[in-house]
């Protein structure tokens, strides 16, 4: 797609830049991403050296330190620095958000494209498949998948990834059905291009904005689900996930240890809010229907 002129993307970016709230959210998302990358580097470094990372080292003399210049967000029950653990939590949240998207989005796009393009029996099969998955009771089904696969990150990835592709699949199917009848697709067909080429080179770029908006909006949902699962002890166990941190902070809150709970809560709130607002702004900026109405 060319960058000059009024392409969808440059146009959308221009509109997004005008939206001050969206730009703030983008900044927040970039900040969290940087934290997650830093967390990943630290994690990899200690993995490679085969040592206990400093955010896992316990020091009972340092337990329950309130926030200070040494520990910005205080320390937890085992004397571990909350700030560092929070950063590791960001890393895990990002991993969950991205990997579940890598599972769910290809499934949704693939089935949606096929169903929309071919119609008929293929469509009936895809509709059957997604209405079946959509009938399963949400969180409980995810937990059941995680239970069967085994506790840990893999269970979370599969549980969330395999259940959250339905919405995207529906959207893509609808879009492809709309695009199928348009002149450029007819022209491509007349030129004798093969269907995978028409579908994935011509139609898909035109519905790509749907994927971007879906990614942005499902990211916070996946993170929240991970937090639940880890909190319930079905997800991450030995690493400092936000859910694990909330669970350990919950008991101490009653004794006045407020910092761990507060900062974890704020971190989740910030991430989810930034992604939600950014997703809304992206949808406004990218949805061509609104564009014709707006200007």
């Amino acid at each position, binding site marked *: 797609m060319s960058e000059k002129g009024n392409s969808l993307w440059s146009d959308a970016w221009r509109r997004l830049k005008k939206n001050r709230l969206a730009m703030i959210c983008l900044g927040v998302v970039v900040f969290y991403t940087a934290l997650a990358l830093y967390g990943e580097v630290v994690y990899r470094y200690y993995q490679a050296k085969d040592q206990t990372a400093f955010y896992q080292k316990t020091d009972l003399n340092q337990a329950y330190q309130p926030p200070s210049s040494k520990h910005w967000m205080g320390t937890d029950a085992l004397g571990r620095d909350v700030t560092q653990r929070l950063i590791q939590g960001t890393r895990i949240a990002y991993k969950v958000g991205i990997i579940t998207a890598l599972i769910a989005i290809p499934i949704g796009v693939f089935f949606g494209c096929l169903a929309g393009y071919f119609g008929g029996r293929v469509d009936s099969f895809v509709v059957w*498949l997604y209405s079946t998955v959509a009938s399963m009771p949400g969180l*409980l*089904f995810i937990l059941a998948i995680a239970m069967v*696969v085994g506790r840990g990150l893999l269970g979370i990835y599969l549980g969330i990834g395999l259940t959250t592709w339905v919405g995207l699949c529906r959207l893509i199917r609808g879009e492809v059905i709309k695009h199928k009848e348009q002149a450029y697709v007819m022209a491509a067909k007349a030129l004798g291009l093969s269907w995978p080429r028409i579908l994935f080179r011509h139609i898909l770029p035109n519905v790509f904005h749907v994927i971007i908006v879906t990614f942005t909006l499902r990211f916070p949902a996946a993170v929240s689900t991970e937090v639940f699962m880890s909190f319930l002890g079905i997800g991450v166990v030995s690493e400092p996930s936000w859910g694990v941190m909330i669970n350990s902070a919950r008991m101490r*809150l009653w004794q006045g240890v407020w910092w761990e*709970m507060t900062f974890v809560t704020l971190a*989740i709130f910030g991430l*989810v*809010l930034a992604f939600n607002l950014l997703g809304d702004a992206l949808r406004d900026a990218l949805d061509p229907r609104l564009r014709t109405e707006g200007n």
Partner: protein
Amino acid sequence: MLRYIGKRILQMIPTVFGVILITFVLFNIVGGSPAQQVLGPHAQADTLESFDEQRGFNKPLFIGTRTTTRAYADSDFERSAGDWQQQNGAVWTNGTLILAAGGEYALPVKFTLRTDCDYELEIEGRAAGFPMFGENQLKLSKDWKKISLRFRSLPALSDAKGGVEGEKIVPGGAPVEIRSIKLRRMMSNPFDSQFMFYLNRLAHLDFGVSYSTNQRVSKMLLDGIGPSLMLTVPVFFVGLITSVMLSLFCAFWRDTWVDRFFVIFSVALMSVNYLVWIVGGQYLLGFKLGWFPVWGFEDPRYLILPVLIGVFSGLGAELRFYRTIMLDEAHRDYVRTAQAKGVSRLGVLFKHVLKNAMIPIITNTVIAIPFLYTGSLLLESFFGIPGLGYLGINAINSSDVDVVRAIVLVGSIIFVIANLLTDICYALVDPRVKLK
């Protein structure tokens, strides 16, 4: 109308079948038999086998004539002699098990084989002599090859050493070299599979027995529905009324700071994690201020806090949804007409907009009904309300597959039925739907 309903019911069947298939694939194929997990690592093979027998896990998955048995684990002599280590005269070298000539080697089964069905023994090996297995000849030759042999166990012939007379390998004049041995139980009816067993039980509305509580799962479900509904129904109605009212508010003051405030407010509400609502609510309102009991299920007072939290946590998303609907309607032509003929703004909102917005509102409402049944997993487990959500979380924590499967299955079937009812209601209200 009847034809439409009939058609919709027919369309429902594949979905119900799909739901059954998904639960089967998830729990039987991916999960496999939970016997070892439930009975512990030291359980005897025959205990495990009878556990499987009770729950149909010892059958082929969909269709098949043979199935594995826990009496004899497949042995591949690539790495070790496996169960043959204790056999006198059996020597394991370099990936093959050698049974010396002249001896008798009982198949090291973990429990006596059933006498009411056939077994199949599959051996990959070679022998120079004429080895026998019980009364049957093992048709091994000088070259490596795989042979299989059907036999039936005879109880009367079992001897003192635990081995059964009919189940001994007798090499005869020359040693037998073996690479692998498998034992399969033959099924008299190939359709007698795990899947048929599952369908059969479902047809009888039998969801099995919980491992952890030893109660019938169907009884546990029935016991749990009451408390779940006591929590979710108030959450549902209070949430619905509040969010519809607030969305009308937004529509009334649209494009003013009131509307904008509610938009940001709803996104902020959506972004607060459910856990935060629960932990914060328990801490502040329950513990610090002492307004509500923190945990338990004794009288209605115990339900106030969870209901409050349930309403608040869902409010953001609902408000946003209903606001979009109201604003969609507020731009329609009939609204302008009504305003032009002098209906007051409030009148337009309540008489015209709300009525027309009822259709999407009702859809959204009916679709939410199945979720009332599963209850709220988190609210119930945090406030100790013994509903289905609490049951579900406990079952997942103790890997109680039958209970989890039953809740998932019943939840999805209720969802499918609610969907059907929505469509029928739609068709009753709006005749255009039938034509699609």
